[in-house]
């Protein structure tokens, strides 16, 4: 390998690839070829660098220059100005509102409060190169553990570090290991749960794609600690790149003897294979996942028996999340005390969060536990996009709850969130602005859970459907007094009675939005009005006659011909047939068409008459 004067790191995480990173990489190869610079510049495809919203992004070493939103057209300028003349291209750097330029990656505000442990190599090394992983200290932890520690020693280290499961539950990692370690069974299995299905979470994908060897190393250390000799990566089929990378990593590790028989000359042997899901959210639940690996429907089974006692093919099994494994090598390298020095009393270390929604810097961040929501959303996330106000944040996806402005100073750790009805979950943070209707959002999450319910237990299968029906009724203007209480009653029952985590947590979004936005539910039911004008049945379009110039464009574009008028009389909307498509608003040249909250009185009167009719009929 020859030394080159410039390292060009192009983020090829799924986010940047979706916005065209691969084309840019191709273009670099072409331009470097043309200019004869192939021997001077090293192009490296890295995993996710984090700031997806700036994508495609790249970092150029030795200086660490950070470019955002690069297009194939910019490549020639980067090569001629930056690589040849040594003048970085300022217009591709990040600028804030005060036009301050951040030239290097270290200066970018997005990275300021982050501490990277699991994500340390993500966006820094070539994920397909085992050499680069080893160069950053990779497989050193495994070597140390295998040659100097007993399995029980390894468990003690994890116990001291305070590491808890990063997949959602927050169960102490060492406890699972200890249970399986103490079990005398001859065969034990270890599973890596890469069935990341939580909408709004993509850290597992980024880790598997960006640093697969770290996950593999973490898994092998765990396997040694509990006495397992074979493992399975269960990865959802929606992540083809992650599947490819982990398979590649396994092959490389085997080739170097880092996996297989007597690793590092010890008595420990290990083999792993990859299994893929096929599009079922419930398979993220560990018993469902085990059934899926066995080639069955991914239905959960009642616990106990826990997988630690009776798991895959009836053998003791540990299922850990991808991110949990991602922390393990570093804990052994830097020590349990170092890890435990970060975070809060009960939640140690760092956590990876996926920031999404109406926030400026969407992307992947890793911050110490205990950071406040305000710091995470406004400092790291750069605040709200489009000049809107913060309204709520949904933590933990469809299993979590929402928090509002009053919770912005809550420290983010397992317990603080749980106390307030939200949960850490896998770390999805969906930020919503003041244009979002919370009833509509709750309905949307419920719709997701109804879709994904496996149908095995009736509280989840039937109960969630009932909740969705009530929400649909409220959102379409047929809500009744008592609906809120009914939702709460059902939600609490479903939480208590469901078989697995999906059903137990599915009512959370509804229950938490009722708790913090009850007035929105009430105005939907009582006043038939959606203040944010999102629920179509609870708003209407209106043409302001003082503004209307009578151009007739709206009437022409209306698909149901419900707008009539003339140049003199101006135009009006006939509310009864209106389908609320919004075409009139889009085409109006003078912005005379506006959305007004509340069901139009004519529509309300018609509905009332219909209800009376059907009542008479029933009687």
């Amino acid at each position, binding site marked *: 390998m020859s030394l080159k004067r410039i390292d060009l790191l192009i983020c090829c995480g799924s*986010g940047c690839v*979706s916005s065209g990173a691969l084309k840019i990489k191709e273009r670099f190869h072409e331009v470097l070829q043309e200019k004869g610079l192939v021997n001077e510049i090293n192009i490296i495809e890295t995993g996710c660098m984090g700031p997806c919203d700036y994508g495609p992004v790249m970092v150029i070493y030795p200086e660490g220059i950070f470019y955002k939103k690069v297009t194939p057209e910019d490549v020639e300028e980067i090569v001629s100005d930056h690589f040849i003349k040594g003048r970085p291209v300022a217009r591709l750097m990040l600028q804030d509102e005060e036009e301050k330029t951040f030239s290097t990656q270290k200066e970018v505000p997005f990275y300021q409060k982050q501490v990277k442990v699991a994500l340390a190599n993500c966006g820094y090394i070539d994920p397909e190169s085992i050499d680069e992983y080893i160069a950053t200290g990779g497989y050193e932890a495994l070597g140390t553990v295998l040659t100097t520690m007993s399995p029980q020693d390894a468990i003690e280290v994890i116990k001291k570090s305070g590491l808890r499961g990063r997949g959602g539950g927050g169960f102490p990692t060492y406890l699972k290991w200890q249970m399986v370690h103490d079990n005398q069974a001859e065969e034990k299995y270890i599973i890596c749960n890469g069935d990341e*299905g939580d909408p*709004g979470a993509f850290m597992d994908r980024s880790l598997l794609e960006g640093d697969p060897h770290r996950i593999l190393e973490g898994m092998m250390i765990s396997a040694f600690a509990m006495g397992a000799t074979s493992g399975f990566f269960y990865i959802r089929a*929606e992540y083809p790149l992650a599947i490819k990378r982990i398979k590649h990593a396994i092959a490389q590790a085997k080739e170097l003897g880092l996996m297989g028989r007597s690793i590092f000359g010890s008595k420990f042997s290990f083999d792993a294979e990859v299994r893929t*899901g096929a599009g079922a959210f419930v398979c993220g639940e560990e018993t469902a996942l085990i059934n899926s690996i066995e080639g069955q429907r991914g239905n959960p089974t009642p616990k106990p028996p826990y997988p630690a006692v009776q798991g895959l093919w009836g053998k003791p099994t540990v299922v850990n999340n991808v991110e949990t494994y991602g922390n393990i090598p570093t804990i052994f390298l830097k020590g349990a005390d170092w890890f435990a020095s970060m975070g809060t009393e009960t939640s140690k270390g760092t956590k990876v969060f996926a920031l999404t929604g109406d926030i400026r810097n969407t992307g992947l961040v890793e911050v110490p536990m205990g950071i406040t929501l305000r710091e995470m959303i406004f400092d790291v996330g750069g605040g709200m996009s489009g000049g809107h106000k913060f309204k709520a944040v*949904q933590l933990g996806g469809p299993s979590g709850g929402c928090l509002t402005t009053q919770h912005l100073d809550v420290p983010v750790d397992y317990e603080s969130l749980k106390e307030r009805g939200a949960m850490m979950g896998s770390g999805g943070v969906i930020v919503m602005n003041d244009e979002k209707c919370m009833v509509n*959002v709750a309905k949307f999450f419920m719709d997701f859970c109804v879709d994904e319910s496996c149908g095995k237990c009736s509280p989840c299968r039937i109960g969630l459907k009932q909740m969705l029906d009530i929400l649909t009724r409220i959102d379409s203007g047929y809500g009744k007094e008592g609906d809120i209480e009914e939702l709460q009653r059902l939600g609490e029952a479903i939480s208590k009675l469901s078989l697995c985590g999906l059903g137990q947590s599915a009512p959370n979004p509804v229950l938490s939005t009722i708790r913090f936005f009850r007035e929105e539910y009430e105005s939907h039911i009582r006043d038939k009005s959606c203040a944010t004008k999102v629920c179509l049945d609870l708003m209407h379009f209106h043409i302001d006659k003082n503004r209307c110039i009578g151009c007739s464009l709206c009437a022409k574009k209306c698909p149901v011909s419900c707008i009539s008028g003339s140049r003199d009389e101006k135009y009006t909307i006939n509310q009864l047939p209106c389908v609320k498509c919004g075409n009139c608003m889009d085409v109006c040249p003078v912005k005379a068409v506006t959305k007004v909250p509340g069901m139009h009185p004519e529509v309300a009167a018609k509905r009332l008459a219909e209800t009376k009719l059907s009542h008479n009929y029933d009687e």
Partner: protein
Amino acid sequence: MTLEICRKYAPNKDNLIQILHEIQDTHPQHYISAAAVDIVAEYLHVPANHIYGVLTFYTMYSTTPRGRNIIRLCESPPCYIKGSDNILRRLKTVLGVGTGETTKDGAFTLELCACLGVCGNAPVMMINDDVYGDLTEEKVEEIVNKIRGAK
């Protein structure tokens, strides 16, 4: 063909999901036929109804023929918040089909799916194995037309 795929895997029940994936991926119409189910059942020594049970449990499998290109638009909350319903409406008009349907020329099937894990660039869709992010109504039309032109 189906039997050849089966033989790549040991005749153990736990390989079922992987076998079904490969059968579906290599079929030009991206689906698993009733005949294929019987072959797999015989190979794995399990009743065909077990295979059918698995097949219909997972959303990625199809028991009916589909288009050459499968468009899977994410319908999860982060994409919804960023306006995926507008994208869906446009896709339906551009393709002239509803969700779950295939265009007459057999080029596209439009499907909705749960989170694709590219939420930082919502709204997103996947066409076969490629992810397209930061979608706008104009952009989806462009993408579809490009694939139409390239065939």
